[in-house]
């Protein structure tokens, strides 16, 4: 490799660190949205790099549906402890108890959509003026149009047809009182970049990503984990399967993959050979062709 030439992962890392530092410089009270999934873990790792040797100058917020896997809660708490992270939790259960949202009913009930209200309430309650998220443009077609610095009006809504132009590395985080920003430092990363980076940097991730035995059933061609939060239909047979998760979200809408990949190297091999996007197993995206765009407009992450 020629001297004075960064590899593509080094260049992506430098870009993300630049964006995170801009957030710290331009906003008074930013927060990093942390789901415990690999993308938010990588974002947090990049934030630790950006401000080293100082601590990350903003807290993390977990929008907790209460329907996550146990492994995830355990992982989250250990990571915060090890890295001196400051965590705030915005609870969907609390939003339900307070009557702000109504739980979906029926066989495909999910708390995914309810998260939006809890997220916006959490932002308002803590007076966060910027929420950093681990969304990537390669994930989904509406996300392909996102800016690094994405403006939200005082209802938290995204106006995709009227976005601010974003040129060079000059990010405009100016806003009126009550408005906030969503910032996406890893916009330009692909799923493969994330995995390769986790391997290169030796980043810890939840055990759910690695192949394990679990009670599962199949619905609409997607393998789902059996949990207390999800009702099965009479014809859905529960079987023990060898699976892993390619993305980690709410247990009610995240599909598992039949897989033997029990190491990062094997996961990378599997991702390289895959012919389906990682969101292919996400029931929340399949509700309609513009499902993601519609949720994003309302303020979904």
């Amino acid at each position, binding site marked *: 490799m020629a001297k004075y030439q960064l590899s593509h992962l080094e260049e992506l890392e430098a870009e993300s660190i630049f964006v995170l530092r801009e957030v710290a410089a331009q906003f008074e009270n930013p927060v990093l949205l942390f789901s415990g999934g690999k993308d938010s873990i990588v974002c947090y790792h990049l934030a630790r790099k950006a401000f080293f040797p100082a601590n990350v100058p903003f807290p993390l917020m977990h929008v907790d549906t209460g329907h996550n896997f146990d492994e995830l809660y355990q992982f989250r708490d250990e990571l915060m402890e090890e890295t001196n992270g400051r965590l705030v939790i915005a609870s969907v259960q609390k939003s339900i108890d307070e009557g702000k949202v109504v739980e979906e009913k029926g066989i495909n009930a999910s708390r995914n959509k309810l998260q939006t209200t809890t997220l916006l309430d959490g932002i308002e309650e803590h007076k966060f003026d910027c929420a950093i998220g681990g969304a990537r443009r390669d994930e989904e077609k509406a996300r392909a149009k996102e800016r690094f610095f994405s403006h939200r009006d005082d209802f938290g809504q995204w106006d995709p047809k009227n976005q601010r132009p974003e040129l*060079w590395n000059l990010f405009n985080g100016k806003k009126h009182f009550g408005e906030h920003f969503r910032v996406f430092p890893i916009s330009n990363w692909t799923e493969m970049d994330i995995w390769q980076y986790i391997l290169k940097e030796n980043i810890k991730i939840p055990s759910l990503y690695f192949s394990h035995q679990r009670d599962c059933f199949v619905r609409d061609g997607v393998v789902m984990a059996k949990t207390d939060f999800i009702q099965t239909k009479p014809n859905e047979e529960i079987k023990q399967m060898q699976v892993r998760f390619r993305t980690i979200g709410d247990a009610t809408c995240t599909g598992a993959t039949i897989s033997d990949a029990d190491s990062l190297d094997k996961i990378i091999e599997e991702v390289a050979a895959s012919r389906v996007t990682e969101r292919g197993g996400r029931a929340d995206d399949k509700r309609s062709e513009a499902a993601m765009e519609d949720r994003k407009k309302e303020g979904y992450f």
Partner: protein
Amino acid sequence: MSNKYLEMDLLRFTTAGSVDDGKSTLIGRLLYDSKSIFQDQMEAIETASQKKGEEKVNLALLTDGLRAEREQGITIDVAYRYFATPNRKFIIADTPGHIQYTRNMVTGASTANLAIILVDARNGIVEQTRRHSFIASLLGIPHIIYCINKMDLVDYDEQHYEKIKAELVGFSAKLRTKDFRFIPISALNGDNVVNRSKNMPWYEGSTLLHTLENIHIASDHNHIDCRLPVQYVVRPQKDEYHDFRGYAGRIAGGVFKTGDEVTVLPSGFQSKIKSIETFNGTIDEAYAPMSVTVTLEDDIDISRGDMIVRPKNQPNVTQDVEIMLCWMSENPLVNRGKYTIKHTSKEARCMIKDVQYKVDINTLHRLENDNQIQCNDIAKVTLRITQPFFADKYKDNRNTGSVILIDEATNNTVGAGMIV
């Protein structure tokens, strides 16, 4: 395989054009032939194409992400696409080509190393070709590839291609970009896109993908003029780093080494680089576009917006700058109006002192007496800034030669400027 992945470099390119150019088909083919389209994405667009009653799978649906775009069958905004070959990773900024989307083209071009400009073989150079070439060159894109597309519709005729190429060579001599390439293709049939064309044995050059994979981009950054705009001051307030003051930023140009003499602007104080810190340990040298934190030997008051440079190679410190301005707002530019201006990590206010001329972006003629600057117009403008800026010419450094203007009432980004 893993190790190889860590050695890949990154090429950002932009494609401008309208649907009928075959731009979407070309991008679709690059993604499809490099196996970057997944099965579920393919199924989704097959279903969508059928719903609209189209006979063939419409690859444009892959790039048009917004509901309004799909409904109207047009590209409104910049969309980013990603693909990789074993040696290189690519980011495509896919932008609409119509004149009312000049600002989107400028946005997509601002971070690109390379532009692909499609020319319809039946029509040769048209207004749109001139406009796209001018914007690519104005935005300092170092490499332009002209793809003479739809060769299948002119019987793959060599003479036809040579005639268009000669016209393009003549025209592009007037542009600032120096590296031009020409490739005869048929995006629809895949000739010379990924695979060599059997229909054009007379063409001895590379295919488009081969060109994209091998074009030399290492020297696209400025590694001569040392510039570190201070973005953030790192003060750990921890016992083990008691007196640590680090200046964090992304190297905008040049190579900084430990021990180098430096000057801090605007104070003019001199010091030496004590260390270059990263999370993974100290390093001996740093260059664009790395994000680093430097410490200095002396205790100097430095804050965001300052710039660390070398004593014998300093930018122009000035409150008056001339820029080529692309106007991006529905509200016209206000002559003598005041705007917020951002340049590297620095922010100030500025006044529009004078509109020197507007450019007719189709003919490249200067319109000296027209100073009504509307959305998508490009003009040469003189600014007066409230504080001194550390400015380089855009042609020397895209990082330290670019500015944006922000409307103070709406907070919108309304202008993109390149210092001349």
